[in-house]
Protein backbone atom coordinates (compact mmCIF):
# COMPACT_ATOMS: atom_id res chain seq x y z
CA UNK A 1 0.00 0.00 0.00
CA UNK A 2 2.97 2.26 -0.39
CA UNK A 3 3.25 3.06 -4.08
CA UNK A 4 6.67 3.87 -5.29
CA UNK A 5 6.59 7.56 -6.19
CA UNK A 6 9.04 6.95 -9.00
CA UNK A 7 6.62 4.56 -10.68
CA UNK A 8 3.72 6.96 -10.31
CA UNK A 9 5.90 9.70 -11.82
CA UNK A 10 6.87 7.53 -14.78
CA UNK A 11 3.18 6.91 -15.46
CA UNK A 12 2.16 10.56 -15.03
CA UNK A 13 4.98 12.05 -17.10
CA UNK A 14 3.99 9.92 -20.08
CA UNK A 15 0.21 10.28 -19.76
CA UNK A 16 -1.68 12.82 -21.87
CA UNK A 17 -3.58 13.77 -18.73
CA UNK A 18 -0.57 15.54 -17.23
CA UNK A 19 0.30 17.45 -20.40
CA UNK A 20 -3.32 18.52 -20.93
CA UNK A 21 -3.80 19.63 -17.34
CA UNK A 22 -0.49 21.48 -17.37
CA UNK A 23 -1.42 23.29 -20.60
CA UNK A 24 -4.77 24.41 -19.22
CA UNK A 25 -3.38 25.43 -15.82
CA UNK A 26 -0.51 27.37 -17.41
CA UNK A 27 -2.92 29.15 -19.76
CA UNK A 28 -5.31 30.01 -16.92
CA UNK A 29 -2.34 31.43 -14.98
CA UNK A 30 -1.37 33.50 -18.01
CA UNK A 31 -4.92 34.72 -18.45
CA UNK A 32 -5.21 35.54 -14.74
CA UNK A 33 -2.03 37.65 -14.86
CA UNK A 34 -3.26 39.37 -18.02
CA UNK A 35 -6.68 40.17 -16.48
CA UNK A 36 -5.10 41.33 -13.19
CA UNK A 37 -2.80 43.72 -15.08
CA UNK A 38 -5.86 45.44 -16.51
CA UNK A 39 -5.44 43.61 -19.84
CA UNK A 40 -1.99 44.86 -20.78
CA UNK A 41 -1.28 43.38 -24.24
CA UNK A 42 2.41 42.96 -23.39
CA UNK A 43 1.43 40.35 -20.74
CA UNK A 44 0.17 37.96 -23.40
CA UNK A 45 -1.45 34.83 -21.89
CA UNK A 46 0.01 32.55 -24.61
CA UNK A 47 3.54 33.83 -23.94
CA UNK A 48 3.15 33.45 -20.16
CA UNK A 49 1.76 29.90 -20.57
CA UNK A 50 4.63 28.98 -22.91
CA UNK A 51 7.24 30.31 -20.44
CA UNK A 52 5.59 28.51 -17.48
CA UNK A 53 5.44 25.17 -19.36
CA UNK A 54 8.98 25.51 -20.70
CA UNK A 55 10.30 26.10 -17.19
CA UNK A 56 8.25 23.09 -16.03
CA UNK A 57 9.69 20.85 -18.75
CA UNK A 58 13.24 22.01 -18.05
CA UNK A 59 12.92 21.45 -14.30
CA UNK A 60 11.37 17.98 -14.63
CA UNK A 61 13.55 16.95 -17.55
CA UNK A 62 10.59 15.92 -19.72
CA UNK A 63 11.33 16.43 -23.41
CA UNK A 64 9.08 18.39 -25.75
CA UNK A 65 7.80 15.41 -27.70
CA UNK A 66 6.56 13.64 -24.58
CA UNK A 67 4.72 16.82 -23.64
CA UNK A 68 3.33 17.25 -27.15
CA UNK A 69 1.94 13.73 -27.22
CA UNK A 70 -0.53 14.85 -24.58
CA UNK A 71 -0.86 18.48 -25.63
CA UNK A 72 -1.66 17.49 -29.21
CA UNK A 73 -5.31 17.17 -28.18
CA UNK A 74 -5.35 20.92 -27.62
CA UNK A 75 -3.30 21.49 -30.77
CA UNK A 76 -5.73 19.39 -32.80
CA UNK A 77 -8.59 21.75 -32.00
CA UNK A 78 -6.87 24.44 -34.12
CA UNK A 79 -8.37 22.67 -37.17
CA UNK A 80 -12.07 22.87 -36.21
CA UNK A 81 -11.42 26.33 -34.69
CA UNK A 82 -10.12 27.53 -38.07
CA UNK A 83 -13.28 26.19 -39.74
CA UNK A 84 -15.35 27.95 -37.06
CA UNK A 85 -13.88 31.30 -38.19
CA UNK A 86 -16.40 31.03 -41.07
CA UNK A 87 -19.17 32.02 -38.62
CA UNK A 88 -17.89 35.53 -37.70
CA UNK A 89 -16.87 36.05 -41.34
CA UNK A 90 -20.36 35.04 -42.59
CA UNK A 91 -21.98 37.36 -40.05
CA UNK A 92 -19.71 40.17 -41.24
CA UNK A 93 -20.25 39.60 -44.95
CA UNK A 94 -24.02 39.52 -44.51
CA UNK A 95 -24.04 42.98 -42.95
CA UNK A 96 -21.31 44.45 -45.13
CA UNK A 97 -22.74 46.15 -48.20
CA UNK A 98 -19.69 48.08 -49.36
CA UNK A 99 -16.04 48.53 -48.61
CA UNK A 100 -14.81 45.39 -50.37
CA UNK A 101 -12.51 47.45 -52.57
CA UNK A 102 -10.87 49.21 -49.63
CA UNK A 103 -10.38 45.86 -47.89
CA UNK A 104 -8.67 44.48 -51.01
CA UNK A 105 -6.30 47.49 -51.16
CA UNK A 106 -5.43 47.20 -47.46
CA UNK A 107 -4.96 43.44 -47.88
CA UNK A 108 -2.54 43.64 -50.81
CA UNK A 109 -0.55 46.51 -49.28
CA UNK A 110 -0.44 44.76 -45.89
CA UNK A 111 0.59 41.42 -47.37
CA UNK A 112 3.34 43.00 -49.48
CA UNK A 113 4.55 45.13 -46.56
CA UNK A 114 4.82 42.04 -44.32
CA UNK A 115 7.01 40.16 -46.82
CA UNK A 116 9.11 43.07 -48.09
CA UNK A 117 9.81 44.63 -44.68
CA UNK A 118 10.80 41.24 -43.21
CA UNK A 119 13.21 40.58 -46.07
CA UNK A 120 14.56 44.14 -46.07
CA UNK A 121 15.30 44.23 -42.33
CA UNK A 122 16.84 40.73 -42.37
CA UNK A 123 19.08 41.75 -45.31
CA UNK A 124 20.04 44.90 -43.45
CA UNK A 125 21.01 42.78 -40.43
CA UNK A 126 23.05 40.54 -42.75
CA UNK A 127 21.08 37.33 -42.42
CA UNK A 128 21.88 34.48 -44.83
CA UNK A 129 19.79 34.09 -47.97
CA UNK A 130 18.04 30.96 -46.68
CA UNK A 131 17.06 32.77 -43.47
CA UNK A 132 15.82 35.79 -45.43
CA UNK A 133 13.62 33.54 -47.59
CA UNK A 134 12.32 31.68 -44.55
CA UNK A 135 11.24 35.00 -43.02
CA UNK A 136 9.26 36.28 -46.02
CA UNK A 137 5.97 34.38 -45.39
CA UNK A 138 5.98 34.79 -41.58
CA UNK A 139 2.70 36.70 -41.34
CA UNK A 140 0.40 33.93 -42.60
CA UNK A 141 -0.92 30.86 -40.87
CA UNK A 142 1.73 28.12 -40.33
CA UNK A 143 0.89 25.47 -42.99
CA UNK A 144 0.57 28.09 -45.76
CA UNK A 145 3.78 29.81 -44.64
CA UNK A 146 5.72 26.52 -44.60
CA UNK A 147 4.47 25.70 -48.10
CA UNK A 148 5.58 29.10 -49.44
CA UNK A 149 8.99 28.83 -47.73
CA UNK A 150 9.56 25.45 -49.30
CA UNK A 151 8.68 26.74 -52.75
CA UNK A 152 11.09 29.71 -52.69
CA UNK A 153 13.98 27.88 -51.01
CA UNK A 154 13.53 28.80 -47.35
CA UNK A 155 13.72 26.42 -44.41
CA UNK A 156 10.15 25.34 -43.49
CA UNK A 157 11.02 24.47 -39.88
CA UNK A 158 12.58 27.90 -39.36
CA UNK A 159 9.49 29.47 -40.95
CA UNK A 160 7.20 27.60 -38.54
CA UNK A 161 9.11 29.03 -35.57
CA UNK A 162 9.05 32.53 -37.07
CA UNK A 163 5.29 32.36 -37.73
CA UNK A 164 4.45 31.59 -34.10
CA UNK A 165 6.88 34.27 -32.86
CA UNK A 166 5.29 36.78 -35.25
CA UNK A 167 1.85 35.96 -33.87
CA UNK A 168 2.95 36.51 -30.28
CA UNK A 169 4.87 39.71 -31.16
CA UNK A 170 1.82 41.02 -33.04
CA UNK A 171 -0.56 40.24 -30.18
CA UNK A 172 1.81 41.90 -27.69
CA UNK A 173 2.85 45.02 -29.62
CA UNK A 174 0.02 45.47 -32.15
CA UNK A 175 -2.47 47.19 -29.83
CA UNK A 176 0.19 49.71 -28.67
CA UNK A 177 1.18 50.49 -32.27
CA UNK A 178 -2.47 51.00 -33.25
CA UNK A 179 -3.03 53.29 -30.26
CA UNK A 180 0.08 55.34 -31.03
CA UNK A 181 -0.97 55.74 -34.66
CA UNK A 182 -4.51 56.70 -33.53
CA UNK A 183 -6.09 53.90 -35.49
CA UNK A 184 -9.33 53.69 -33.55
CA UNK A 185 -11.93 52.01 -35.77
CA UNK A 186 -12.51 48.36 -34.84
CA UNK A 187 -12.55 47.16 -38.44
CA UNK A 188 -9.10 48.61 -39.18
CA UNK A 189 -7.66 47.39 -35.85
CA UNK A 190 -8.99 43.86 -36.35
CA UNK A 191 -7.97 43.62 -40.00
CA UNK A 192 -4.45 44.86 -39.23
CA UNK A 193 -4.03 42.26 -36.47
CA UNK A 194 -5.25 39.48 -38.75
CA UNK A 195 -2.99 40.47 -41.65
CA UNK A 196 0.14 41.00 -39.55
CA UNK A 197 -0.26 38.33 -36.88
CA UNK A 198 -2.59 35.61 -38.29
CA UNK A 199 -4.34 33.35 -35.74
CA UNK A 200 -2.67 34.57 -32.56
CA UNK A 201 -3.43 38.20 -33.43
CA UNK A 202 -6.98 37.20 -34.34
CA UNK A 203 -7.45 35.30 -31.08
CA UNK A 204 -6.56 38.53 -29.27
CA UNK A 205 -8.91 40.62 -31.44
CA UNK A 206 -11.82 38.19 -30.88
CA UNK A 207 -11.47 38.59 -27.12
CA UNK A 208 -11.41 42.38 -27.30
CA UNK A 209 -14.22 43.28 -29.70
CA UNK A 210 -16.67 41.35 -31.87
CA UNK A 211 -16.27 43.56 -34.94
CA UNK A 212 -12.46 43.52 -34.68
CA UNK A 213 -12.57 39.73 -34.30
CA UNK A 214 -14.69 39.31 -37.44
CA UNK A 215 -12.40 41.51 -39.53
CA UNK A 216 -9.33 39.70 -38.19
CA UNK A 217 -10.90 36.31 -39.05
CA UNK A 218 -11.58 37.54 -42.58
CA UNK A 219 -8.00 38.82 -42.83
CA UNK A 220 -6.39 35.44 -41.99
CA UNK A 221 -8.06 33.59 -44.84
CA UNK A 222 -7.59 36.42 -47.34
CA UNK A 223 -3.99 37.02 -46.37
CA UNK A 224 -3.19 33.33 -46.74
CA UNK A 225 -4.37 33.50 -50.35
CA UNK A 226 -2.84 36.93 -51.07
CA UNK A 227 0.58 36.01 -49.67
CA UNK A 228 0.69 32.62 -51.39
CA UNK A 229 0.10 34.47 -54.68
CA UNK A 230 2.23 37.54 -54.00
CA UNK A 231 5.45 36.07 -52.57
CA UNK A 232 6.34 33.87 -55.58
CA UNK A 233 5.82 36.95 -57.82
CA UNK A 234 7.91 39.19 -55.56
CA UNK A 235 10.52 36.43 -55.37
CA UNK A 236 10.94 36.16 -59.14
CA UNK A 237 11.16 39.97 -59.36
CA UNK A 238 13.83 39.90 -56.66
CA UNK A 239 15.75 37.15 -58.49
CA UNK A 240 15.56 39.12 -61.71
CA UNK A 241 16.72 42.29 -59.94
CA UNK A 242 19.61 40.51 -58.24
CA UNK A 243 20.56 38.63 -61.41
CA UNK A 244 20.83 41.66 -63.66
Amino acid sequence: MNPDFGEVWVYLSASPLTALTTTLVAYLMGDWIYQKSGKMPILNPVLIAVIVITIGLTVTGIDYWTYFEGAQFVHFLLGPATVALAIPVARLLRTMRSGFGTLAVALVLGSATAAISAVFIAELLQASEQTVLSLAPKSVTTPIAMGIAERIGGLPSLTAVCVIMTGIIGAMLGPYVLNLARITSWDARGFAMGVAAHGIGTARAIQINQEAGAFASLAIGLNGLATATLIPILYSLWQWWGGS
Partner: protein
Amino acid sequence: MLIALTQLLFCQLMGEVIARAFDLAIPGPVIGMSLLLVALLYRQSIPEHLETTAEGILSHLSLLFVPAGVGVVAHLTVLGNEWQAIIGSLIGSTVITVLVTGWVLQRLHRGASHES
Protein backbone atom coordinates in the same frame (compact mmCIF):
# COMPACT_ATOMS: atom_id res chain seq x y z
CA MET B 1 -22.97 21.32 -29.47
CA LEU B 2 -22.34 17.78 -30.72
CA ILE B 3 -24.01 18.46 -34.07
CA ALA B 4 -22.08 21.70 -34.50
CA LEU B 5 -18.77 20.01 -33.66
CA THR B 6 -19.56 17.24 -36.16
CA GLN B 7 -20.31 19.84 -38.83
CA LEU B 8 -17.04 21.66 -38.14
CA LEU B 9 -15.03 18.43 -38.26
CA PHE B 10 -16.86 17.35 -41.42
CA CYS B 11 -15.95 20.63 -43.17
CA GLN B 12 -12.33 20.19 -42.09
CA LEU B 13 -12.31 16.62 -43.37
CA MET B 14 -13.74 17.73 -46.72
CA GLY B 15 -11.10 20.47 -46.81
CA GLU B 16 -8.30 17.96 -46.18
CA VAL B 17 -9.66 15.67 -48.88
CA ILE B 18 -9.84 18.52 -51.42
CA ALA B 19 -6.37 19.81 -50.47
CA ARG B 20 -4.83 16.37 -50.96
CA ALA B 21 -6.83 15.38 -54.04
CA PHE B 22 -5.85 18.55 -55.91
CA ASP B 23 -2.42 18.88 -54.26
CA LEU B 24 -3.21 22.43 -53.10
CA ALA B 25 -0.88 24.63 -51.07
CA ILE B 26 -3.87 25.83 -49.04
CA PRO B 27 -4.29 23.87 -45.78
CA GLY B 28 -7.37 21.67 -45.26
CA PRO B 29 -8.88 23.70 -42.38
CA VAL B 30 -8.74 26.90 -44.47
CA ILE B 31 -10.56 25.16 -47.34
CA GLY B 32 -13.01 23.77 -44.76
CA MET B 33 -13.62 27.31 -43.54
CA SER B 34 -14.34 28.47 -47.11
CA LEU B 35 -16.77 25.55 -47.63
CA LEU B 36 -18.66 26.41 -44.44
CA LEU B 37 -18.66 30.10 -45.38
CA VAL B 38 -20.17 29.39 -48.79
CA ALA B 39 -22.81 27.15 -47.18
CA LEU B 40 -23.69 29.82 -44.60
CA LEU B 41 -23.92 32.60 -47.20
CA TYR B 42 -26.08 30.36 -49.39
CA ARG B 43 -28.43 29.59 -46.48
CA GLN B 44 -28.61 33.31 -45.67
CA SER B 45 -28.75 32.57 -41.95
CA ILE B 46 -26.43 31.11 -39.32
CA PRO B 47 -27.92 28.22 -37.27
CA GLU B 48 -27.95 29.07 -33.59
CA HIS B 49 -26.26 25.85 -32.46
CA LEU B 50 -23.35 26.54 -34.80
CA GLU B 51 -23.08 30.13 -33.60
CA THR B 52 -22.90 29.20 -29.89
CA THR B 53 -20.38 26.40 -30.45
CA ALA B 54 -18.18 28.59 -32.66
CA GLU B 55 -18.27 31.35 -30.09
CA GLY B 56 -17.27 28.85 -27.39
CA ILE B 57 -14.27 27.54 -29.33
CA LEU B 58 -13.14 30.90 -30.66
CA SER B 59 -13.25 32.66 -27.29
CA HIS B 60 -10.41 30.30 -26.27
CA LEU B 61 -8.54 30.38 -29.56
CA SER B 62 -5.40 31.70 -27.80
CA LEU B 63 -5.17 28.55 -25.67
CA LEU B 64 -4.91 26.38 -28.78
CA PHE B 65 -1.60 28.01 -29.75
CA VAL B 66 0.13 27.12 -26.47
CA PRO B 67 1.50 23.66 -27.51
CA ALA B 68 2.92 25.14 -30.74
CA GLY B 69 4.39 28.00 -28.72
CA VAL B 70 6.17 25.54 -26.41
CA GLY B 71 7.42 23.82 -29.57
CA VAL B 72 8.98 27.09 -30.70
CA VAL B 73 10.98 27.38 -27.51
CA ALA B 74 12.08 23.75 -27.86
CA HIS B 75 13.23 24.47 -31.42
CA LEU B 76 14.88 27.84 -30.85
CA THR B 77 18.15 26.25 -31.96
CA VAL B 78 16.99 26.56 -35.60
CA LEU B 79 17.51 30.30 -35.19
CA GLY B 80 21.21 29.50 -34.80
CA ASN B 81 23.71 32.36 -34.72
CA GLU B 82 21.35 34.56 -36.74
CA TRP B 83 18.83 35.00 -33.95
CA GLN B 84 19.42 38.74 -33.58
CA ALA B 85 18.72 39.36 -37.26
CA ILE B 86 15.64 37.11 -37.17
CA ILE B 87 14.11 38.65 -34.06
CA GLY B 88 14.92 42.16 -35.29
CA SER B 89 13.24 41.42 -38.60
CA LEU B 90 10.18 39.84 -36.95
CA ILE B 91 9.60 42.73 -34.54
CA GLY B 92 10.27 45.45 -37.10
CA SER B 93 8.23 43.86 -39.85
CA THR B 94 5.26 43.02 -37.62
CA VAL B 95 5.06 46.57 -36.26
CA ILE B 96 5.31 48.08 -39.77
CA THR B 97 2.67 45.69 -41.14
CA VAL B 98 0.16 46.44 -38.37
CA LEU B 99 0.77 50.14 -38.95
CA VAL B 100 0.45 50.10 -42.76
CA THR B 101 -2.61 47.82 -42.89
CA GLY B 102 -4.52 49.62 -40.13
CA TRP B 103 -3.63 53.08 -41.41
CA VAL B 104 -4.56 52.34 -45.03
CA LEU B 105 -7.91 50.83 -44.08
CA GLN B 106 -8.86 53.61 -41.68
CA ARG B 107 -7.80 56.26 -44.21
CA LEU B 108 -9.76 54.70 -47.08
CA HIS B 109 -12.86 54.18 -44.96
CA ARG B 110 -12.80 57.76 -43.76
CA GLY B 111 -12.40 58.94 -47.32
CA ALA B 112 -15.37 56.83 -48.38
CA SER B 113 -17.62 58.12 -45.60
CA HIS B 114 -16.73 61.75 -46.37
CA GLU B 115 -17.81 61.26 -49.95
CA SER B 116 -21.19 59.80 -49.17
